[in-house]
């Protein structure tokens, strides 16, 4: 079952085209990694699907709901805001810089959206939040403030925060890029555990080894287009395109 369909997506900032004709389909339970040099449009792609950026053209379908469509006049239009809000609830997003709410403790960071947006009972949400924190190994940090946590701990809280809305899909925008190298492991482990549970995920990452390990499909982006695409075996194997090999070789060397 397809969870995310992107067709001919394009995005321009002024006259600069940052995404050109992007198409791919993510099925339930799949893990997709998006790799590529900086400035290749990876994050912009994720942000367009997440409605943080407005796409310029193309179509996006999330969990069977049309989010972005071409209308009869051939113009690209967004669904009504109530549908967009619904769609957004299907996707959890984890940011590079965590973006936790600094004035709220860990528990409150996680419970705020379910209580305010979904109007759920606070006590019930707190129970779910504590379970999520337990899963992240942070049960003892529920009353701590984000500033008291390490980067890795903050990122795990932000994953728990996204999961608390029970999304169908989880997106990661370079989840380990702001972390010290010794802290990336704990985040990658959490993502692997989620993959093992069958969570559908799209991960923009610079961790090539991780992408190879955890992803079912890898998209290699360059200059705003999908330069190469396939299973890890295909992209990291001998038959990959020259450009992909060249890009990946830079990571193998260091």
């Amino acid at each position: 079952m397809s969870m995310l369909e992107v067709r001919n997506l394009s995005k321009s900032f002024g006259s600069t085209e940052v995404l050109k004709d992007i198409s791919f389909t993510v099925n339930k339970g799949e893990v997709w990694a998006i790799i590529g040099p900086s400035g290749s449009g990876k994050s912009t792609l994720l942000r367009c699907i997440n409605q943080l950026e407005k796409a310029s053209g193309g179509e996006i379908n999330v969990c069977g709901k049309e989010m972005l469509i071409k209308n009869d006049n051939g113009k690209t239009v967004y669904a009504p805001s109530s549908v967009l809000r619904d769609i957004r609830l299907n996707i959890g997003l984890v940011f590079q810089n965590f973006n936790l709410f600094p004035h709220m403790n860990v528990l409150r960071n996680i419970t705020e959206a379910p209580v305010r947006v979904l109007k759920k009972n606070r006590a019930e949400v707190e129970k779910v939040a504590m379970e999520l924190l337990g899963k992240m190994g942070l049960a003892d940090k529920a009353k701590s403030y984000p500033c008291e946590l390490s980067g890795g701990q903050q990122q795990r809280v932000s994953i728990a925060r996204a999961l608390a809305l029970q999304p169908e899909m989880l997106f990661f925008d370079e989840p380990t890029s702001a972390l010290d190298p010794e802290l990336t492991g704990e985040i990658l482990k959490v993502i692997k555990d989620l993959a093992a549970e069958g969570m559908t995920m799209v991960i923009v990452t610079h961790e090539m080894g991780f992408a190879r390990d955890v992803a079912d499909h890898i998209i290699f982006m360059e200059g705003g287009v999908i330069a190469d695409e396939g299973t890890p075996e295909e992209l990291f194997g001998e038959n990959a395109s020259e450009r992909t090999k060249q890009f990946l070789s830079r990571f193998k060397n260091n």
Partner: protein
Amino acid sequence: MSGEEIKKVFMILLEYLGPTLKIFGFTLLYSIPLGMIVALLKMCKFKPVSWLTNIYILIMRGTPLMLQIIVAYYAVPMLKQNENLPAFVQSILSGVNIQNENFMFNAVIVAFTLNYAAYFAEIFRGGIESIPKGQYEAAASLSMNKFQTFFHIILPQVVKRVVPASSNEIITLIKDTSLANVIAFAEITLKAKQQMQTYSSLTPLFIAGLFYFVLAMILTVISAAIEKKLDYYK
């Protein structure tokens, strides 16, 4: 001045602490919410609104508060004499009763509120603009609407950031209340001036100064306590 006289002057000034605090209190009550509204208007993406707001702020900050108090007090009676004004302006003016015993106080509050709202607006705008974009994006990714994002995510963080600058304004305000004496509004400074003439002595002015000094100290202590209370996160 004898000890007895000093005590008498002190009691008179103490009586006019009320009007001074009334200017202070009502100005804060009105200018803080108005300042927040003005800050949001200045950040409005519809440019004419932003420009008009900017002109208002420029005038309020670019002209003396004392002058503004004089204008606020004399504008209505003066304009009432002008028969060439458009009808709707005249009908608004006729609605203001300048014989009302509160008219002078109201004029003072209007001037102080409009002036301080401009200063607060700039402080609040700085505070709002200093909140990282990521906070809005995180809230959006959690499907919070604009209202929830502003009141539960942004505003609490803005409050912490604007407390030091706002305390500064608030301490200035308690001293600025003395400007109301320019239209003979009876508050501490006006009374101190009268007592100075009565006794041909500077002592009443020093007593008045002591009142403002103590008030400023109290406000300093309160603002330090608020800053400390908000220090539970970085």
